[in-house]
């Protein structure tokens, strides 16, 4: 297992390198720099700005410098929570540079303030997706071809065709505007977490329920389940003891795409509910052509997704050791 994890960790290095390189050159080669605004900037000011951000240097040098700055130079995860939010500089020595839009803050500070919000939102969403989707799918599999199964299936279809940006406003309309149970936007009280997390998680409830149902149906038709039944094991025991491990496999392998989906969903959710998270920051920075911030966020997302996928892979191998040899 240790060798497996080590190999996978080594494999992520070239992937991250390629992503950084591709994103860096893609953004740098965009015609029109970050300072092309409606307002004409005097050439002296522009020169100073370019010098300040290091944009006056040759591109390869900028690239090498950026690469060195974002490269982790120490490993002290315990210092991550020392300051306000996540301190990437103190814990890993990662310096994402300066934003061209928020001139008084470094990108590290922006990330420190915004990433925890997005992680909290994503965590709740994932919890809802699994907490509702798994039982729903298991119920549908256990009561196959009854009204429970059909209700669960049509509910999953609903989740698939009602994307977050339709679902979100609709939920706001009903629960915030008509019923007045929650605030329609903001991120201050615990109750503010409910609507965004439900919206973000609901789509995945549907998929996960579908996958769980499929996985369990396949496992339940196997011989060892029949053996268990013949030995007189109860339905509950069969579901949770015998079928659980195999039935969960498709769901676990779906967790990777689900995490990626929750991250991209957060762009929209954070915009709808005006949540001060990293997703909204990414979209705004793309609009503002805040190149360093776009780069930094893309890099951060890449690390986050690749890291979480690694966790998912390890879980998969743990559940199904045959995979280790493929």
């Amino acid at each position: 297992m240790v060798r497996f994890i080590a190999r996978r960790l080594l494999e992520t290095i070239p992937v991250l390198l390629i992503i950084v390189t591709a994103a860096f050159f893609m953004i740098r080669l965009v015609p029109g720099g970050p300072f092309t605004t409606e307002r004409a900037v005097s050439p002296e000011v522009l020169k100073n700005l370019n010098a300040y951000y290091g944009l006056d240097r040759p591109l390869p040098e900028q690239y090498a410098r950026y690469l060195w700055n974002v490269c982790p130079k120490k490993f002290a995860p315990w210092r991550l929570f020392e300051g306000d939010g996540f301190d990437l500089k103190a814990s890993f020595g990662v310096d994402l540079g300066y934003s061209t839009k928020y001139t008084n803050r470094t990108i590290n500070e922006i990330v420190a303030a915004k990433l925890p919000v997005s992680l909290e939102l994503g965590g709740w969403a994932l919890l809802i997706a699994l907490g509702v989707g798994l039982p729903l799918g298991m119920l549908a599999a256990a009561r196959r071809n009854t009204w429970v199964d059909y209700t669960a299936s049509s509910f999953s279809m609903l989740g698939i065709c009602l994307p977050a940006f339709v679902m979100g406003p609709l939920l706001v309309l009903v629960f915030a505007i008509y019923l007045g149970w929650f605030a329609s936007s903001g991120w201050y009280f615990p109750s503010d977490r409910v609507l965004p997390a439900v919206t973000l998680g609901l789509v995945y409830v549907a998929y996960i329920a579908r996958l769980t149902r499929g996985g369990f149906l396949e496992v339940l038709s196997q011989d060892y389940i029949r053996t268990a039944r013949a030995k007189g094991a109860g339905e509950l025991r069969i579901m949770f003891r015998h079928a659980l491990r195999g039935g969960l496999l498709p769901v676990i392998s779906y967790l990777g795409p689900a995490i990626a989906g929750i991250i991209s969903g957060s762009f929209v959710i954070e915009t709808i509910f005006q949540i001060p998270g990293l997703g909204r920051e990414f979209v705004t920075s793309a609009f503002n052509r805040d190149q360093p911030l776009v780069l930094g966020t893309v890099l951060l997302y890449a690390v986050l997704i690749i890291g979480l996928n690694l966790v998912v892979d390890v879980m998969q191998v743990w559940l199904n050791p045959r995979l280790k040899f493929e």
Partner: protein
Amino acid sequence: MKPGVFNRLFGFRRPPGNVEIGSSLGTDAWRRLRANRAAMAGGIFVLLLTAACLLLPSLLNLSYSDQDLALGSTAPSATHWLGTDMHGRDQFARILYGGRISLMIGLVASIVSLVIGVSYGAIAGYAGGRLDRVMMRIVDIIYSLPFIIFVILMMVFLKEPMDRLDAWLRGFSWLSNLQGAGRILGLFAAIGAVEWLTMARIVRGQVLSIKKMEYIEAARCLGFSPLRIIFKHIVPNLLGPVIVFTTLTIPAVILLESFLSFLGLGVDAPLSSWGTLIKDGAEKMEDAPWLLIGPGSIFALTLLSLNLLGDGLRDALDIRSGKD
């Protein structure tokens, strides 16, 4: 539709002359599809919707830009079936025109992804060896980030060139009403550039199994070039999975486009897609919920229909796990 039409569509030719008509793959598939009521309903809805978007605006003399500022925003009524927006524009007409844009983007970007994905996957699968490994590694790497991040990056990347192209296009007098076309071309490119990945994987997997067959060996013995073998002998045998997956790509693309438009990175005013309409509706929903509910439900119904149709086609053509 007669089964023969379907056969020709899929490239299954009936033997000439008065041969006893067996049931071909196409006929079987068509029969199975027809038995699947949900898929048929989905297909019929999509056909009707496309026809409505193309024909109704001119038949009913609707305009998406005619403003009636005195009228303002009104609830659905006999004259305006789905209400009007802030500027007194008929919402039904706007949904139909938005549907043209959304469906067109869905179709064209899917075809772009189809062409790239099939060629890429087929070449990688047929070549095998190191080329295959490198090509699929590239796919894996792009896969490791959510599509949307790439599309957002590309929309930012393509903004300037596309605006320039747009201005250049409008320089021709006969294209002067094509405002915003540059942006849409950018969307085609950006969405097509990411949606081909899954297709490439599926096609590669299929090619790997097909290329071991004897008729491919025969073709190679006849001295045909690899490209000819790939595109004349292998690709036609992939039609089933490719058709199914393209049907499932269309809703994914429509969703992606609406997602971008919702964020303000997609289709720009004066053109509008369902995404922009939903965005406008979400902003005004407190006073005018019909502006959200109208486009939202049409959008959801379209996605549902296309997904049902795709699933039905998959079952009918008996393709296992098209999404792996």
